[in-house]
């Protein structure tokens, strides 16, 4: 058995976190929080033709936590997030958000969620103000004008407010996309590489806004990123995927210790090569 296989039961797996005992291996990993989790991923699988894009993934995200979903390209992160959002129906297992199965009851919870992804863009021909207004109305935001003013201030969008979204720089578009993701004060926020196109200064600035939002709202955040510094700064817990499976999970510091690495970057590289 290779070193990685100790963390990788082949079927019906739940990777072993430092606090779980073997008896718990087939149950979603508990993070030591008694309250019902904001996100519960149970035996989640997705098969495309003959390929398992996601294979028996289990994890819970307690309310108010920020969890990082990591993995190389093709690891299954985006498919997992898409199933949590209810945009993709699992082949097996389920993804629950705030107690609702996202395959069948997503409409009950969508107004309390939001997301940002580089695969998705805001309508480029609309101005920033028009986009925020349209999405604010779709989410039924009360006092929409005041909420948009708050976001303009938080994300320093005053200068671009009446500019066409499609003509903004990549960094400005990201700020607008994150502002849109927060327009309804979501309880659950799914972020797919939220700072990918930003310079380090702007990326840190966006992270600080996300931290402030999380602290103010007590929101639950599931974050996918290739930026390990970002993950270490933002996340309480990390789930690492490879080839559709979870290969490790734990607190960022614990993972580095467990794999005898200096930081999460090294853990990521180590797992990517071994897995």
């Amino acid at each position: 058995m290779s070193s990685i296989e100790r963390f990788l039961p082949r079927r019906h797996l739940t990777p072993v976190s430092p606090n779980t005992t073997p008896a718990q291996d087939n149950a979603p990993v508990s993070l030591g929080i008694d309250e019902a989790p904001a996100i519960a991923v149970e035996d989640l699988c997705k098969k495309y033709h003959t390929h398992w894009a996601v294979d028996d993934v289990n994890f819970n995200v307690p309310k108010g936590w920020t969890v990082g979903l990591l993995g190389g390209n093709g690891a299954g992160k985006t498919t997992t997030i898409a199933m949590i959002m209810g945009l993709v129906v699992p082949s097996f297992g389920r993804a629950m958000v705030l107690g609702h199965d996202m395959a069948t009851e997503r409409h009950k919870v969508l107004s309390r969620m939001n997301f940002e992804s580089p695969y998705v863009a805001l309508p480029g021909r609309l101005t920033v103000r028009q986009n925020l207004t349209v999405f604010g109305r779709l989410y039924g935001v009360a006092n929409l004008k005041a909420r948009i003013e708050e976001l303009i201030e938080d994300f320093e969008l005053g200068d671009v407010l009446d500019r066409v979204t499609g003509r903004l720089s990549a960094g400005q578009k990201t700020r607008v996309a994150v502002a849109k993701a927060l327009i309804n004060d979501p309880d659950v926020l799914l972020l797919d590489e939220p700072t990918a196109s930003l310079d380090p200064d702007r990326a840190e600035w966006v992270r600080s806004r996300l931290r402030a939002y999380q602290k103010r709202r007590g929101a639950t955040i599931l974050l996918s990123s290739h930026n390990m510094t970002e993950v270490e700064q933002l996340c309480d817990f990390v789930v690492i995927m490879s080839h559709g499976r979870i290969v490790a999970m734990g607190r960022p510091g614990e993972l580095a210790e467990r794999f005898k690495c200096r930081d999460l970057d090294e853990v990521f590289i180590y797992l990517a090569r071994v897995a």
Partner: protein
Amino acid sequence: MTQSLNRIAAMTARYYYILRSSWLRLLEIVYWPAMQMMVWGFLYTYLYQSKSAMASTAGLLLGAVLLWDVLFRGQLGFTFTFLEEIWSRNLANLMMSPLQPAELAASLMLMSLIRLVIGTLPVTLLTLLLFGFNVFAMGPGLILFFLNLVLTSWAIGLVVAGLVIRQGLGAESLAYSIMIVLLPLCCVYYPVEALPVWLHPVAWSLTPTYVFEGMRAVLLDGTFRTDLMMECLALNAVYLGMGFATFVALLQSARHKGGLLTMGE
């Protein structure tokens, strides 16, 4: 209910912003029907002046062109408005919002109607001014003709939108081509009797056939066929229901297939 109406209004505002953002788009809505009408209008004038056997039926030609355009532009307006979401990679944003499929469909229908009015009203006036053909002379029955054709265009638009969601942009060309299948079968320019007998049931299963037969009854015999329009409305109710059910089924199928998140990439 109020929230639902708010979401429909938000989506309609979104499409209105797009339309308003480009005068070229507005011009395009009028341009194609206007050019088509010019061609058929001059043919109408030629036939009318030639004193041939065809002269007496020349008006039918322009009436048919105008009504066919209602059907064709109605479907294009619906489908193209939907395709905006795919082209701008915005579909996942909408699917992740509380917007329901029925609300999306309602906003697309509303926008199709707005585009139709923008496109056909100037052309109708142009036809009257240039060629002296007054489509409003068909009387109040024209409203039922219009309503029935619009309902059919929405039913077809829903199926096309569903296919684009299910199959991706590969199905985009259906937006332009699907109506052409109907053109020979729904007897736009000739009566049902002109078709082979074995095609009659096919023609009568298509709602536009009722409208074009009804138009010919008004223009040739001066009679309004209420029976045809009522049958047509009933069929349209069935087709619209089937169109929406197909849209929802294809959306659900796309959720199984995956790809909604990356749609438009």
